[in-house]
């Protein structure tokens, strides 16, 4: 049977010819970005995060009132055209507090994660590169730290240090640090055992060069993904701890702490419950969507 030259084949040929004309520059990062861009959900997550950041930056222009504008004559008003999310038990405009809340939850979660990754990263790098006994000792210490469930550990630290943003950040960073260092160590070890590191060594690359040019970019993938998911977890922890009264305390408009009185108000003013929780969920959802996309883009094998 003679093969027919179909229009589809012609189209493919044309596309090929077009591709040949272009200089094909492709690095792993660029490839990943290309794949990420094609992932609609991940881009949706990214867009939500950017919007949240913009809201945080322009909060004073968006929010109709301040964060602690107590007007006792308008306590617990349901949503209306004047107060689109209603007012809380102190007569504060919930919408304004939600808007200012973008300045708290996301940044605090981010800072917790940055600190956890920085501390964990240093320990993990030492462990992974020194290997042997050093590795063993560091990882056994991590084991001990990890034998306290993370939220419990954070509660213990926050309880002994007292309330406040700084103490909360410290509590969450310290309690999550062991798990984060484990991720980083695993990423470094995987890359370290790869053949291209062997070949880099074989061509005589110095160890700093090995680290900077070959290992770091390749280990970044899984670390970046883990980082995104960790920010999501940290935001959830921040809000949970603030909810039980061990984190950020009123009048700071942290979304979790805004909910701390809503259990008592379930019957009388259930609308105080909806929006702060929804905001936490949207933020975390956006991070998870972006993290999923990042993981798929960096590791196209899985999908």
């Amino acid at each position: 049977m003679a093969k027919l030259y179909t229009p589809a084949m012609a189209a493919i040929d044309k596309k090929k010819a077009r591709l040949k004309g272009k200089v094909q520059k492709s690095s792993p990062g660029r490839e990943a970005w290309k794949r990420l861009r094609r992932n609609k959900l991940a881009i949706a997550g990214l867009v939500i995060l950017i919007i949240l950041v913009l809201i945080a930056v322009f909060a004073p222009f968006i929010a109709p009132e301040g964060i602690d504008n107590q007007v006792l004559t308008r306590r617990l008003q349901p949503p209306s055209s004047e107060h689109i999310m209603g007012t809380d038990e102190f007569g504060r405009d919930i919408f304004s507090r939600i808007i200012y809340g973008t300045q708290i939850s996301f940044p605090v979660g981010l800072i917790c994660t940055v600190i956890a990754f920085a501390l964990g990263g240093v320990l993990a790098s030492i462990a992974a590169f020194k290997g042997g006994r050093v590795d063993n000792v560091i990882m056994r210490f991590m084991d001990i730290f990890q034998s306290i469930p993370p939220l419990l550990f954070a509660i213990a630290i926050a309880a002994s240090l007292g309330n406040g943003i700084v103490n909360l950040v410290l509590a969450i960073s310290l309690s999550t640090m062991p798990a984060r260092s484990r991720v980083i160590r695993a990423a470094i070890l995987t890359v370290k055992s790869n053949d291209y590191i062997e070949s880099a060594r074989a061509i005589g690359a110095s160890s700093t060069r090995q680290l900077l040019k070959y290992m770091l970019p390749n280990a970044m993938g899984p670390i970046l993904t883990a980082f995104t998911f960790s920010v999501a977890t940290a935001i959830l922890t921040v809000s949970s701890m603030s909810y039980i009264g061990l984190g950020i305390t009123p009048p700071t408009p942290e979304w979790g702490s805004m909910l701390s009185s809503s259990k008592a108000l379930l019957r009388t003013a259930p609308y105080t419950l909806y929006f702060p929780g929804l905001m936490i969920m949207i933020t975390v959802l956006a991070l998870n969507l972006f993290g999923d996309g990042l993981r798929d883009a960096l590791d196209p094998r899985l999908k």
Partner: protein
Amino acid sequence: MLRYIVKRLLWMIPVVIGVLCIVFVLSVVTPGDPVTTLVGADASAEAKEAMREKLGLNDPVYVRFANYVIKIVTKGDLGNSYTSNQPVKTEILDRFPVTLKLTIASVIVALLLSVPLGIISAVKRYSWIDNLSMALSLIGVSIPQFWFALLTLLLFAVNLRWLPASGISSVKGWVLPVLMIGVGNMGNFARTTRASMLEVIQQDYIRTARAKGQKEATVIIKHGLRNALIPIVANVGNVVGISLGGAVIAENIFSVAGVGKYMLDAINSRDWPAVQGGIILLAIAFSIIMLIMDLLYAAIDPRLKSEFRARGRKKAGRKLQVA
């Protein structure tokens, strides 16, 4: 295998000492004076000093630490609660079964509900049921537990009046706390199962099973599932840890008299021995659960089992050489 169990049990000693160390350090850096809490702010200086002496607070830090560890290790004495003046150990052990049951029930319910969903998602990839279950799972891992609890409380207890708002004296009372603790895990399990199953389905041994003429359902269950469960079982230990944390919050929202509520009440009344005791006991319980999970893990993955065996042999060989 026995060697491994013994080794893991011995390893718990440094873990416990480490935990004691951490908890002790936390109690040292705690601002505020426990004596004031105990005898009242307006008590006389002599009374305060007497209490201080009685608690051993005037000793140097290392002596206090040594006394603290010795007391716990030899007598299992975690001290008395400042508020009730009862031994912390008995107070916590009374409440511990509830917390443990709540945690384990939620992990089991989460597994039972979400693992099948993950399998169906993987097998019927990109179908509407896959899309739906993955959307739900994503919400599950993104929703704040306590907010989920409040929403379900509003819906099922306040509006519909189907379920009680607090307490777990009836079976119905268990539903909301168990769901709340498990909501994140469910999302997590479903997502992990799907990803793991998708990877397993592409393996050569699945093709071998199909080449035998095996039914697709049997291929998935017999050859796929057990392999796909390995990463999930490997992670169940950690999930139990996360759930213990969730139980602390759940007990407070649903007024369940467990260790979590006890601890948070203790935190609010600055009752440090109670807080410390709670953390120590939960950490030990968590370590034991991790050990059990690791053994279970070894049981379903034969590669690990023989690795333990091989490791034991290698060690024995090395000893012979030294001799």
